[in-house]
């Protein structure tokens, strides 16, 4: 009973630590710079605001709010494809942020797409995207190291084996959970996803102008990138319609 309580307290402590770290933000650029861009946005000068947001995003590739703000500017400029692209980037960095979720959902709905797949409970969708890809990878890495360390101690210190058994099992389970969660996410809508950024984008049967046009894709449509090794074209798949083809990299942006 005591062991269970102790384990519960440890988990609770980890959760509190995680949430605290989530709330604390790493110091970045001067707040007045952002305020200046936000003023431009407020006054309707979306293009100038966008340039500022993109500048921040270029410097801080892990800052979701720079992408979110850029998405807002694009949305105001009536560029839903680019708006979804940047909201998607922000979402992949911080999927728990309510503003990012809301705006991505709004923009997708605006373009006739579902953020939460039909039939999927919203709570389950929230849980499915609770951690970002990076966080899952980091959790897997940390617990890989931890599991190896605990196993090493387990092997060396016979006296501690009894005590370590539970911790090793816990670390192993978390590691396996993070691994399977990542694996499950690889088939999600936002994994290896790209957004069509130009209206009536041509879907070609091969990576070149000489190939036949299969279909035209509407702006803001989310597609799956199957191969991005070509310099000019993405090989993409559209799961809903069950078709695949090539689009120019200039006509779509990878989230």
């Amino acid at each position: 009973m005591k062991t269970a309580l102790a384990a519960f307290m440890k988990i609770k402590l980890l959760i509190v630590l995680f949430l605290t770290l989530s709330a604390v933000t790493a110091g970045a650029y001067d707040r007045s710079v952002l305020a200046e861009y936000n003023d431009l946005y407020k006054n309707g000068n979306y293009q100038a605001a966008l340039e500022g947001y993109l500048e921040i995003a270029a410097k801080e590739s892990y800052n979701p709010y720079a992408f979110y703000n850029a998405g807002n500017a694009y949305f105001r400029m009536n560029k839903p494809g680019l708006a979804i692209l940047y909201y998607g980037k922000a979402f992949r960095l911080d999927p728990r942020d309510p503003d990012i979720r809301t705006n991505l959902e709004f923009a997708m709905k605006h373009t006739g797409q579902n953020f939460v797949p039909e039939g999927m409970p919203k709570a389950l969708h929230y849980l499915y995207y609770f951690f970002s890809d990076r966080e899952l990878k980091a959790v897997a890495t940390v617990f890989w190291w931890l599991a190896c360390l605990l196993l090493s101690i387990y092997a060396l210190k016979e006296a501690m084996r009894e005590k370590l058994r539970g911790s090793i099992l816990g670390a192993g389970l978390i590691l396996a959970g993070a691994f399977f969660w990542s694996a499950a996410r690889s088939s999600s809508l936002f994994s290896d996803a790209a957004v069509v950024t130009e209206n009536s984008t041509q879907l070609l049967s091969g990576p070149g102008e000489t190939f036949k046009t299969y279909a035209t894709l509407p702006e803001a449509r989310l597609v799956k990138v199957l191969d991005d090794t070509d310099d000019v074209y993405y090989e993409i798949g559209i799961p809903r319609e069950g078709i695949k083809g090539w689009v120019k990299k200039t006509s779509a942006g990878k989230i």
Partner: protein
Amino acid sequence: MNISISNIFFRDIGRLTIFIALCLCAFIPPSLHAAFSISAETDKQSVEINDSLYLTITVSGDSSSVPEPALPQMNNFNIYSSGRSQNISIINGKIATSVAFTYILTPRFIGKQKIPPISVSNGAEKHITPEIEVNVVKAAAAAQAAQPQNTAPRAQAARQPSARAQAARQPEEMLFMTAETDKKAAYPNEQVNLTIRFYTAVPLTSNPQYVPPTFKNLISEDLPPVKNGETVIKGVRYTYSEIKTALFGIEEGQASINPASVFAQIHQGGAIDPFDPNFFQQFFAMNSGQGETRQVTSNSAALKILPLPEGAPAAFNGAVGNFTFSAEPDRREIKTGEALNLSLAITGKGNLKTLLAPKLPDMPDFKVYDTVNSLNISKDNDIIGGKKVFTTVLIPKTEGRRTIPRINFAFLDPATKTYKELSAGPFELTVEKGDGEGQNVSFAHGGQAALITPISSDIRYVSDKTAAPLTGTAAGRISAMPLWLNLFPVGALLLSLWLARLNDFRLKNPMLFRFRKAHGEARADLAGAADKLKNGRPKEAASILYDSLLAYLYDKSGHKVSGLTMRRTLTLLKEKFPDAGENALNGIKDLWGKLEALHFSPGGATQEEAKDMLETYTALLALLEKEFKKRG
């Protein structure tokens, strides 16, 4: 108006049920809370060009207030508001409201004219009426002849007494407007009638478009319909259209009426002279609709709003006019927790729209809920009046004989410039003990939290957060580590496993490890003995050497030699190391004997003896290591 509340359904409902019901209500879409319907109709399908028709838009809803219709732009009609009529009923605590908005429409063109769809929106839902078609016909000549004072200006096809004289007049004299009030001073809320007349001595190619004046410190109320007639001014026959508006001063001080305008299309050539050689050409050109647009404006006017006379009674709350007052509860016998409607009716002449509810006296025996009102406005003989009923829901708190105290209403009669006070009540009620506690009666804005009505949706505003959450940053850095770094813990684990295995082997073969470690430990003992010698303690040094030799022999032979004789020890060593030389065994024998002698002698070893033993032991150790390796 019929107001009734039945509490039968709710009598047995406990607090919990009410709470659950309220919670469920919170999840019902707002549109269902404030459902309403709309209808529109005209009083006639066909109208003469000089006549007018009534358009009634009825909005019915289930809250105490319903939205007003938004009239679209109608270029084919002049529109005048003719007031509203409201009907409210409360059944089982639910309100049903029906408001009829009445407008007077005067046509501007002959032919089939359409009243476009009219929309009403409450933010959550929008209803639209169907288009209404009205046939506008020419004015009947007989009617014109019989009623010369009720003809439209366009229909007055210039029965000028002297067409030549008319044609010779200046254009600005052919069309003009006047604005005048029937009073120059009035009390706040006292009715003042404004009459605006548009005169024309030339035929118009279409009905004129009227732009009403704007007012300062005045509230206006249309007084339709438009009256038409003919008059002669300075020898010129004019047809005129007269629009009346009731005005009410807002507060003491100056009030002003800005000019009104009329846009009229007249025949370009002005009046047609029947003696003109081109009469027929001009006549047909006129009928073909050619003309120029003229704007005519009226004069401005001023009004003085007088201060209210002194000595206003306590019940006076701004009502000016001439009213009657009555009050009546809808029942005299009631149970605690049940609701009764107390209706206060004010009827008479005056600005009922701005009339406030008479203040109710304190009623500690009752729960007093919001007051709703219904209004019926009449405009007979250009006097604004009607009836306004204020309905308040009261719920008695305790049983017994309870009294609704006397209710007073006071107003200023502008005719006599005196205040008049009317009263109603008191009303005696018999209150019996009810089955439950007082139920909640909820109006749209009372008794429960106001509902939020979504109007539109949009993206959320930009973020002012300057940096990513620390978890995101840390996760980014960890996940950016090269993959090969993750092989390190694997290496550490493998090393640990090897060490564990080694340890296990050592535990299982202790003598093997003692054999291997014997030389190292003996050398450490030699160093310790040398240290003792250096410090001038030869006895202790000899003891160290003696213990060290026995321990070394124990580690090498696998037998505890301290319990054996020297001879037995040497035999065992010979058995274990058959290839070891005799000199090595003799060396052991010799050193063991000397050390034993020194160790157990009462005086102990001298510095020289101990030093000698140290050197001998060092040399023997090197020899033994060499000899013992010959073992195999």
